[in-house]
């Protein structure tokens, strides 16, 4: 009846139990709070069934931040283990548990934290920046979000019922095949990211079409804000790269669940094929994450330098170059597989070539500040720290692009330091800058600057403390993913320094939590009544904060790039002519499809056949129901819009 699922799946060691208890307590307190505040209906009507990208964006960010906290605690556990597990001391985690922890850490950080923050910001900002009222496919958008959320739920479920893989975040076969990983851990890994990944692919299609088709009249491609350009590049990559992930995971799942031999070591399977395929997705994935961060920095630097973005056309071409090049570098993740000198050299050189457009962007940001009026707000501080740390990572990256050098640092902590350098210094700092910058637009009040600065300093200093020692450790021969090492190697001191670094970063996270609490408490003081708290340049600042459901009451054509800025300069008073606005109705179908997908994943993992059948039938039924539903929109009349707008102006 329940397949492989038995009571044993619920039995865990003391450390996991602590994790489970905190998770259960967290969930119970949320449920309790909802009962206490009688907010169930509100939750259902306003959030779960919503198709408004602004609300979906907020939900993305909430899920991503929760996952960030869990994933950070994994990071802290790893650092603690490596700081003490020396010689005769074997630390507090077993090898298997340690390996599960770093697998969970990597998987969550990439698929659920970075992707979540990215799609959150895209949902919130892209429709506003292109002056649109909605995304191209609002219902699909809700479905995408819930698939992402249910992927996260499935991954967290592995902590409660069963285990997560002990294979590293990309689960290379043959280690991830049944022969070496017979448990359900790898299956949890496959299905949680498969479900979330399909969500990402659908989102990619959605925003690609949104940007190409729904721009305000007059906004030609070369008049789009740079963030929109960067998202366009990123979404092209999503649409091209994510199907590779989906197919690769599907083949691994077939190997594991139906005894096939795509990637097994024997019987004609080829693990090298998996490694090629997963990186053919994995490398573009890095740029999927970093391009929107570049876009955010472009907006932030221009706004806080009170100056037009320098070299706009070159920035656009740099993005386009990066998009193309990101597909011809994947092999640099495994020069050590022995492809031969010509192949290795080609991929090495292509990798270095990416440094050119990336470097161009940095120089253009610097020259945006040049002859500007630079305000050191927290988004700007994140930008400055990004340039300084990202550059270190860039140097390490160029080193590793030379295959002969890569042989000496690959799979070592040098590599770990490098990609954290790129992802924390680039992606995370970028998204933090974006969250701070656009927070008032979404919630109607600014975040507290003082705590923001404290958080910034903790993150920046903690980052250096945590990762500079790893560069050195890698050079000392310390490979990644070690749960234990010999005292004679002399690594312990550096691991302890790295551990201190992580604690400083955690203090930074603490300040961010405080920042949020303080900002909410002082929201009346920091309220944004104009809709334009930073003296912004692009269309999102031309509407009220928080943004009304229809985004813009009127759709005046766009005449130039920084259209809102020049309107302000010319003090144009736009003639207001209200019109009827069509708005999509809320629907629970997206949510229900995702729940069915969750059940499907769970059923495959535990081999519960009847549940598989039920889940598939549910998904087909729900999709058909939605397809046949004609009544998906309602109309907000011009009168109602006018009433809402004037009320907003008075308040």
């Amino acid at each position: 009846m329940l397949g492989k699922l038995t009571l044993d799946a619920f039995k865990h060691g003391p450390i996991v139990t602590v994790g489970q208890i905190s998770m259960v307590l967290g969930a119970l307190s949320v449920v309790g709070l909802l009962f206490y505040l009688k907010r169930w209906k509100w939750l259902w009507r306003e959030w779960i069934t919503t198709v408004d990208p602004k609300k979906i964006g907020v939900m993305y960010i909430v899920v991503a931040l929760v996952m960030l906290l869990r994933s950070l605690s994994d990071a802290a556990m790893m650092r603690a283990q490596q700081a003490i597990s020396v010689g005769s001391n074997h630390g507090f985690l077993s090898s298997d548990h340690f390996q599960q922890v770093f697998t969970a850490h990597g998987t969550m950080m990439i698929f659920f934290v970075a992707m979540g923050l990215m799609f959150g910001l895209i949902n919130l900002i892209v429709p506003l920046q292109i002056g649109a009222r909605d995304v191209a496919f609002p219902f699909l958008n809700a479905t995408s979000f819930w698939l992402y959320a249910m992927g996260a739920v499935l991954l967290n479920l592995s902590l409660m019922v069963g285990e997560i893989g002990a294979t590293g975040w990309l689960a290379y076969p043959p280690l991830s095949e049944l022969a070496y990983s017979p448990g359900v851990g790898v299956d949890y890994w496959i299905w949680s990211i498969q479900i979330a990944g399909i969500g990402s692919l659908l989102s990619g299609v959605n925003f690609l079409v949104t940007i190409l088709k729904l721009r305000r009249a007059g906004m030609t491609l070369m008049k789009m804000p740079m963030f929109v350009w960067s998202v366009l590049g990123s979404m092209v990559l999503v649409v091209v790269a994510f199907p590779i992930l989906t197919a690769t995971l599907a083949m691994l799942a077939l190997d594991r669940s139906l005894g096939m031999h795509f990637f097994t070591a024997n019987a004609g399977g080829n693990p090298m094929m998996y490694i090629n395929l997963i990186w053919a997705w994995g490398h573009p994935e890095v740029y999927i994450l970093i391009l929107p961060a570049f876009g955010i920095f472009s907006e932030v630097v221009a706004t806080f330098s009170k100056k037009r973005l320098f070299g706009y056309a070159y920035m656009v071409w740099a993005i386009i170059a990066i998009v193309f090049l990101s597909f011809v570098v994947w092999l640099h993740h495994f020069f050590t597989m022995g492809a031969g000198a010509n192949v290795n050299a080609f991929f090495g050189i292509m990798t270095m070539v990416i440094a050119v457009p990336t470097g161009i962007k940095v120089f253009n940001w610097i020259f945006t500040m040049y002859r500007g009026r630079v305000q050191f707000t927290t988004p700007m501080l994140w930008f400055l720290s990004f340039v300084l740390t990202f550059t270190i990572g860039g140097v390490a990256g160029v080193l590793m692009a030379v295959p002969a050098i890569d042989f000496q640092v690959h799979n070592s902590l040098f590599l770990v330091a490098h990609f954290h350098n790129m992802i924390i210094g680039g992606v995370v700092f970028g998204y933090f800058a974006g969250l701070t910058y656009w927070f008032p637009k979404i919630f109607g009040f600014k975040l507290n600057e003082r705590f923001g600065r404290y958080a910034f300093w903790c993150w920046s200093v903690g980052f250096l403390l945590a990762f500079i020692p790893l560069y050195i450790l890698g050079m000392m021969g310390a490979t990644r993913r070690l749960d234990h090492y010999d005292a004679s190697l002399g690594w312990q001191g550096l691991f302890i320094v790295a551990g201190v670094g992580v604690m400083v970063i955690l203090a930074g996270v603490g300040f961010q939590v405080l920042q949020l609490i303080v900002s909410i408490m002082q929201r009346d003081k920091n309220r944004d009544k104009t809709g334009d708290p930073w003296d912004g340049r692009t269309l999102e600042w031309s509407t009220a904060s928080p943004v009304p459901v229809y985004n813009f009451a009127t759709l005046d054509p766009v005449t130039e790039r920084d259209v809102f800025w020049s309107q302000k300069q010319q003090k144009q008073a736009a003639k207001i002519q209200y019109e009827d606005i069509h708005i999509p109705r809320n629907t629970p179908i997206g949510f229900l499809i995702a729940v069915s997908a969750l059940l499907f994943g769970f059923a495959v993992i535990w081999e519960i056949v009847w549940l598989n059948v039920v889940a598939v039938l549910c998904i087909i039924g729900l999709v058909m129901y939605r397809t046949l539903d004609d009544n998906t929109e309602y109309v907000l009349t011009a009168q109602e819009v006018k009433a809402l707008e004037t009320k907003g102006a008075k308040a």
Partner: protein
Amino acid sequence: MIYKMRKIVAGICILVGFVVVLALLLQGHTIDVLQPAGIVADKQKHLIIIATLLAIIVVIPVYALTIGVAWKYRASNKKARYTPDWDHDKLIEGVWWGIPIILIGILSVITWQSSHELDPFRAIKSDKPTQKIQVVALQWKWLFIYPEEKIATVNFVHIPVDRPVDFEITADAPMNSFWIPQLGGQIYAMSGMTTHLHLQASKAGTYQGSSANISGEGFADMRFTTEAESEGDFQEWIEDAKTSKDVLDTTAYKTLAAPSRNNNKTTYVLADEKLFDTVIMKFMGHEPDAQRSFESHLHRQVMQ
């Protein structure tokens, strides 16, 4: 202003303190990659230095410009020029497209040459004969086979100094990576396949080696030592090893290949000189159980 100066001084103190702590922690320990003991690792170290220097040509202006420009054009400095609409300059763009392209061009040439010169599969030129050593990554230990000398070792390997060594590598385990940082590195060990790593030690000594790629529970224990010694000592060691009481035949291999951790260093007399090929062939062709396991799987599904 004094408040600001204090902050800057405090920042510099923290930075200096950090460097001092790192330096103290490194006292008496080897930074393997930067202290090579073999010709390959030595060339790799030089590449690291050259590439870093080339990269620094870009890094220094980036740092100086970022800090300098941000500070000079701070909003409170009303004396600085302000040109809000100035947003392109072909000359400036040309300079910073040009310089990185030139640098990357130089690096590309270096990359192309070094990729060929230091290709792990490429034999090292020498007038001395190459020592052949076969390597099998097991769960979770390293087996070294000397097919010509008919001996084998576990978790340690002896090599002669100043003679090229051809490591012929495979795995009877998940994928591992074979790495001896002070001699040069590293190449994957994969089942059913052979990879090669050509190294040559230039001075006698003991060098640590490990697996750099996760291969299951005992992966952290997959360490071995490399004893590089003079030709005389090496030959003596081989003669000595041939007298070992432990014999590596098919049965002994099966026992050895079963998953185990923290194996002692062991020396064997090699009974089966085709052992390495047998290990590779294990993964070739059709798995006899595959069809059966698929059917039984379907059967189980139907029964439920």
